[in-house]
């Protein structure tokens, strides 16, 4: 199995403290009004006296999918799945900020950075990992609900947790927009009905819609982008192929 950095989340341990959200914000200088990660709350319209475990909090972020629709939607190849670690990356030098990838993600994991004018999302904190630290959200979580690691490495805690919970692993997916996410929840998680239908504008349409500073610069960027996209597609085709994952609905085993 190829390397795949992933999160295995015991959402029953999450108490919605939002430590992970603020940690991420500081670590990645995420601008006001935007977040790279989130906690979804199960709606409990009428809590019932005497009942238990009525609420549920579900941590999330970009799921570094195996079939990332954001990659399909990117006209320049700036967004790509890196075969070296399985993460879905955004090359800021190539991103033209067209925003095409944003509605293509069924999880709303992306936003357009208002200052840098590029798409942005969770990248599992590469600068921290280079220094031997965990992603900021994982590091700070009080209950260690978020577990991170390479699920292809059987010695990683993430892989061990997956193995120990075979048959109890859930992924939050929407049937018509199944991106094969690499975010795994132990046992039941809620809410599960929140991803939206992924929508992709044809790349060229996006390019033409993106009418900004100078047409020549645009063409230059676009040309570079197309070349990069071609190169990356080639790489992914070559290294890629079948992912180790089976059909990803509801509960599923990981090997």
């Amino acid at each position, binding site marked *: 199995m190829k390397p795949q950095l992933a999160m295995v989340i015991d959402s029953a341990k999450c108490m919605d403290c939002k*430590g992970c959200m603020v940690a991420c914000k500081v670590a990645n200088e995420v601008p006001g009004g935007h977040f790279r990660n989130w906690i979804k709350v199960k709606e409990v319209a009428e809590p019932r006296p005497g009942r238990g475990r009525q609420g549920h909090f579900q941590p999330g972020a970009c799921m570094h999918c195996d079939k990332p629709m954001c990659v399909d939607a990117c006209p320049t190849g700036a967004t790509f799945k890196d075969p070296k670690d399985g993460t879905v990356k955004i090359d800021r030098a190539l991103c033209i900020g067209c925003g095409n990838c944003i509605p293509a993600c069924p999880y709303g994991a992306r936003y357009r950075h208002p200052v840098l004018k590029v798409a942005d999302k969770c990248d599992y904190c590469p600068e921290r990992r280079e220094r*031997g630290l965990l992603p900021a959200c994982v590091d*700070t979580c*009080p*209950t260690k609900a978020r577990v991170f690691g390479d699920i292809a490495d059987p010695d990683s*805690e993430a892989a061990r947790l997956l193995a120990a919970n075979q048959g109890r692993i859930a992924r939050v997916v929407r049937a018509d927009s199944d991106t094969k996410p690499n975010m795994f929840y132990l046992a039941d998680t809620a809410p599960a009905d929140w991803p939206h239908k992924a929508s992709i504008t044809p790349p060229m349409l996006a390019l033409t819609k993106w009418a900004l500073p100078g047409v020549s610069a645009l063409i230059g960027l676009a040309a570079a982008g197309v070349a990069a996209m071609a190169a990356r597609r080639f790489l992914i085709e070559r290294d890629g192929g079948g992912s180790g994952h089976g059909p990803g609905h509801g509960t599923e085993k990981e090997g």
Partner: protein
Amino acid sequence: MSDPMNSARQGFDPGRRNFLKAAGLLGAGAAASPRVLRALAPAEAQAASVRGEESSVFSACDMCFNRCGLIARVRGGRVTKLDPNPLFTKSRGMLCARGQAGVAQLYDSDRLKTPLLRQGARGEGKWKRISWDEAIALLSAKLEEIGKKYTRCGMLFSAGADMQSAFVNRFAEVYGSFNVTSHESLCLISGNRAFLDTFGEVPFADVLNSRYVIMAGANRFEALVTPDSMDMVEAMKGGAKLVVLDPRFTKTAAMADEWWPIRPGTDMAFMLALCNVIINEKLYDERWVAEKTFGLPELHEHVSAYTPEWAAQETGIPGPEIARIARELAAAAPASLVYPGRRTSDYENSTQIRRSFAIVNALLGNWDKPGGLLAARQVGVKPVPADAPWYDDNPETRVDAHLVPLMFEEEGSFVLTREAVITGEPYPVKGWFVYKTNPMQTAPDRTRTLEMVKAMEFVCVVDIQMSDTAWMADLVLPAPSYLERKDPCQALQGSSACACVVTREPAVPAMFESRPVFDVLKEVAGRLDLAEHFDFTIEEYRAKQLAALNGAADVLARDGVYYNPSKVYGIYDNMGYKTKSAKIELYNQRYITAGLDPLPVYAPPKSPPKEIADSAFRMVVGRSALVTQSSSTNNALLHELVPTNTLWMHPAAAARLGLKDGEMVRVKSPVGEGTQKLHVTAHIREDTVYTETGFGALSKGLSRINGNGLCIAAVLEGKYDSVTGNAAMHETFVSVTKAGGAA
């Protein structure tokens, strides 16, 4: 490609059992990039940071009282990120959202930058920037003057939960004033009193090892207490059961195994009924209770009328359910507990309410045992006593002495002190020195606090931001935040997790013209002929604190935390209890002499006054994992997540009053009013409304919360616990109307 160090740390388990193992693995990995995990000596760190490299400095969080150990990452002279110190077991190696938002406090444009002298009327917001020399001269002169005019007890000193607050108390002592208050009498002293008067000391709950926990008057998954909040999650993962009683459907209630929306003010009825079942059905360890407790026959008789059916009428929880919970709780004993709670500033009989909690625990026989209530462990940090001078003209006691029967002498009561200041009885108190605490926001009945300020001739506030209390002061002095300070050591106990010591090194130098309160007091002491009592540096003070702990200073420098592997359980095996009977006092003998009920006697909570009964609600207040009163709500990162406070109201009540979700409402009590947004939700009882602390600031120096939301202090009445003088903040009925409409 996974990083070896990451894999190692993936083994991290918040539970005590795996912690050291994980830490060991971490240590091994640390060799690869030592600077990431090991903090540097301050000078070294500064130098590295100036070179543009990242340096790491150990500190302890100050965004709430928990003091989570942290590592500040510094680059180019700026703190870029705060990470939890993975070796700090009390927090289970975490920093919460507030802890993470500490950088936004450090670099907040709202910070106080220079000494400020009031120009216009108090609270008018006209300030003149003055030099530190002028400020110190003024403060010294005023301390001298007030001492002369009114005796040294004419000065009141109030310091918040800060690692330098000990210096304020030391200063008060050598200056010669008995009048010292802290935040504690607006928070936890009723609960402390109750457990102290039952067990002889204030216990820690061994939540991690408990199999069954009843939580009432506590919201641990929101109002974080380390390690209890994390340990409860971990214990539940292992099958422990959590029963939550709360008029609100909190996050704690949402995650609990059982939630009961108890009628506010009736917790004691529930606890007495538990005693009734446990005693009548002989569900306790008879030998243990006979040997260790005092007053079982009296308790037996006392609770005979407090049946589950009776309690059902009071609490709204069905009798058979109460009886079942009692049986389950007792079956899990001694690894079961009624959680003692922290903030117990809620009712006028809070001490007696919490006594009923303590008594159930006594019947469970859980004292000093895994999963029960734990005695304080030995940490070994030494106090550094002052040899205070004697002032002949001083009155005999604190200004609020004897107003309630069992006040804590060293804490007093803020609410009662306030009344004494206003009336000038029994003697005048005319000066107030405040350090990093904000009674204008945290003490009920703000109008009275304003009266108190009015009665003062001189008010000096030292803080990092222009709190509402600073806003009313005459002299405001800028303090550095915790990330800019070298602090003394602090001893901490994290339940069964640890007994430890933390300290702080400055991650960056003090910003603006800010100065630590220690430096300020040291200089003032010099001018007041008290120099000998501040004749030390922070390093020297620390050395005295650590004198009995060999090598602790080195360990602190290396790990950011020092552990004392002292005994956790069985501390009382060969020891009597520190009570009159030397046993656990179900029946408190001292209470009789003090004119108090020796066993908690239930009185139903009051009903709202008739005139407003239709539109009146009992108001309850609280904080969350994102809010530490008013000290955190103006923080830019936290403000984004909690932009204001709202009033929670049940849909049926809102419908009855014709109020809609999201509209502005006017909240009015006998002492004041305010407006805020209405949040219509079935997550609260119909007879109760709730709002969060820390909003509706008067200070224009708090740009994000000035005039934003409702200040709880504006509407809560200044009632207090009749035993300790602790504030009673759930005794106010408010009426709620559409904002802008008629009263």
